[in-house]
């Protein structure tokens, strides 16, 4: 079919970026461009462990960011000349790897749960585990996260338990969100993770606002706002970035460019050279990085954070990856892209496998840990499903700081009706 063909090539374009030394296939660090994947390493389709990346260590030395605002500052700076081996020690690497695996398994289990009708909705972050976990690892716990909707890995890293995830998805009485939000729309002020808001890109100008407040408080923290490739088309993207630059707000904009916005490939989303150039247009230092490489993302975000906090300015990080899963459980992506393409990314460019090889090479992980992880997760889901849903009181609270008179009255009326007709009242709603 004509449209099929068009779509495939559109995505192939995105894929090709990873395999050839195309213009868009380059890692740009400062003014220098490095081929994203060394063509000399011909086994391009085989997951390469650390050794192949070592050939291009310079890729991951975040040497320079440059901003190219016409007329104003075009500064460049040198970051520390760290070898990545020193940046990620064993403890950190093991935690990163186990969280990536947990995220992957958790996504699979919840996806299946939705398919079985046990929860209403779910979104996986398959293919983007490295972006999630490495970003979280590179940030501090005081850094405020303003997610889009595919960053639950960060919550996981910060200590949101499997049980809490399950509670939110099932909307039971132990849900920290009191059963108010649909699945995936997590929020936890304790973990500095702002509640997920569905309208796309609204979190971007809001991030500038939070960052401005942090700046006024002179805190040693920044805001990290996430957006997808599709979200960069929204008006709020423009307003948010422009404003953050003008206000010199310490915010890191992380664009998860995974090639797809539901069924819209990036070639139909924008005609610019990806998203990094958009950041530049606003006078924001920008970098593009391989999102399937956990260590690359880690060092890029680390450097971005230092810049944002020490120089009090926004930074844009574009991470290139591929959305292996469907957009959500309401989507069947085989309708607009080929199975082969999905399989290829799933097996050959899986960020988890890639990182495992590095971790195993260092002797830091084994099968036993893997099995233990899976059984813990299964248990959490079973427990969550069995719990009761939130009580009636939670229907009326939090609309305002204090309950308004009309809601107080309405609740009173409702309870009186329940007392009068107890048999008709559903048994799964506790009072």
């Amino acid at each position, binding site marked *: 079919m004509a449209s099929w063909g068009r779509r495939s090539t559109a995505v192939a374009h995105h894929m090709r970026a990873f395999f050839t030394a195309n213009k868009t296939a380059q890692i740009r660090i400062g003014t220098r461009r490095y081929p994203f994947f060394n063509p000399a390493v011909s086994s391009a389709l085989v997951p390469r462990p650390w050794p192949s990346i070592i050939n291009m260590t310079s890729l991951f030395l975040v040497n320079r960011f440059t901003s190219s605002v016409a007329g104003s500052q075009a500064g460049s700076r040198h970051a520390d000349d760290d070898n990545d081996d020193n940046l990620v020690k064993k403890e950190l690497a093991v935690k990163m790897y186990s969280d990536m695996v947990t995220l992957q398994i958790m996504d699979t289990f919840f996806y299946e749960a939705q398919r079985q009708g046990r929860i209403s909705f779910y979104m996986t972050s398959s293919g983007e585990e490295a972006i999630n976990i490495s970003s979280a690892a590179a940030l501090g716990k005081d850094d405020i996260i303003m997610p889009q909707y595919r960053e639950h890995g960060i919550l996981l890293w910060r200590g949101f338990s499997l049980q809490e995830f399950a509670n939110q998805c099932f909307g039971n009485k132990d849900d920290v969100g009191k059963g108010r939000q649909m699945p995936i729309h997590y929020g936890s002020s304790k973990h500095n993770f702002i509640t997920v808001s569905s309208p796309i890109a609204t979190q971007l100008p*809001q991030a500038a606002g939070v960052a401005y407040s942090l700046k006024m408080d002179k805190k040693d923290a920044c805001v990290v706002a996430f957006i997808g490739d599709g979200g960069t088309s929204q008006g709020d993207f423009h307003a948010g970035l422009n*404003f953050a630059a003008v206000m010199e707000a310490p915010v890191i904009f992380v664009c998860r460019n995974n090639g797809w916005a539901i069924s819209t490939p990036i070639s139909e989303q924008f005609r610019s050279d990806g998203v990094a150039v958009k950041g530049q247009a606003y006078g924001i230092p920008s970098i593009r990085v391989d999102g399937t490489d956990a260590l690359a993302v880690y060092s890029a975000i680390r450097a971005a954070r230092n810049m944002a906090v020490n120089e009090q300015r926004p930074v844009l990080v574009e991470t290139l990856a591929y959305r292996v899963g469907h957009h959500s459980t309401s989507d069947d992506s085989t309708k607009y892209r080929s199975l082969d393409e999905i399989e290829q990314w799933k097996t050959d460019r899986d960020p988890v496998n890639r990182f495992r090889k590095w971790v195993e090479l260092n002797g830091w992980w084994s099968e036993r840990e893997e099995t233990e992880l899976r059984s813990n997760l299964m248990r959490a889901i079973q427990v969550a499903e069995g719990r009761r849903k939130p009580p009636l009181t939670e229907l009326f609270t939090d609309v305002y700081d204090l309950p308004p008179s009309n809601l107080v009255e309405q609740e009173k009326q409702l309870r009186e009706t329940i007392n009068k007709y107890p048999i008709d009242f559903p048994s799964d709603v506790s009072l």
Partner: protein
Amino acid sequence: MLGVVRQKMLGQSLPKIRPVVSVLRSYSSAAKQMTVRDALNSALDEEMSADPKVFLMGEEVGEYQGAYKISKGLLEKYGPERVRDTPITEAGFAGIGVGAAYYGLKPVVEFMTFNFSMQAIDHIINSAAKSNYMSAGQMSVPIVFRGPNGAAAGVGAQHSQCYAAWYASCPGLKVLTPYSSEDARGLLKAAIRDPDPVVFLENELLYGESFPVSDEVLDSSFCLPIGKAKIERVGRDVTITAFSRMVGHALKAAEILEKDGIDAEVINLRSIRPLDRSTINASVRKTNRLITVEEGFPQHGVGAEICASVVEESFAYLDAPVERIAGADIPMPYAANLERIAVPQVEDIVRAAKRACYRSVPLAAAA
């Protein structure tokens, strides 16, 4: 007149008719006059000095001293960190305000007119209004969105719409509509101190109008309660509800009606959400007739909500059909003669009140 019929609806008992005298916070003996503009300016000034978390943001609020000079002198006094001029992006600065409020600051976001708030309405409704609920109380949004609302003079369709009904239909928001300088001061202070998001609808034509203010009103701790209407004029024969500029029209209409022997009670709503249903219903139970007045479009307007409330709670007390006076159901025209016809005038209120009192045939009866 119908006798009082006790009705029990689902166990809800009738609220007592509150004594009217206590509600009469009359303008005291002080002769001091203050324009609404100065009232707003002084309220902002006092709240900003009392709480360092309060800051003002909007187009032209700083260097230009405010598009309507409401923020005059504030940039000089508090500096550019607390009085921020913004680029032209309502979506941008409304979003930034919401973000700042998530973090714990208290932004006052000014829209040049609420017509432009349409470009930011997603942040107001989907973020500001709903966040506290969606986050189960973890994220409150103590923000105030303020600016002129409703018709001005000769500015056409995109500068003249009244948004009271739109914002007031959304749970999670509070919507205030000051009329006098006392209202402006008291309600703005209350709005800034309130932990919930507030939409504060001013009126451009009222900015220059002067009202008497007592010493109590001028005190920096002065604050009006949100959700309480004010009975501007006590009457016996017909209740007229109004808000913002229409309160002035209603009061003038009441003077004209008095000469014809009709004693009108004028209620200044002050707060559209929460709506002071008990004051309105108590008044209707006393007078048995109701006219609602608003500048906005008639369909799904504030008057529709008031009519429904009265029919639900005080139906047996009504002696005449309820009538709504609203702006014409058209985008506002520019030509002065057409504009005049498109907005409620004092004569419209007088005629409607007479119809309610059966001095002429009510519209409903004529159908």
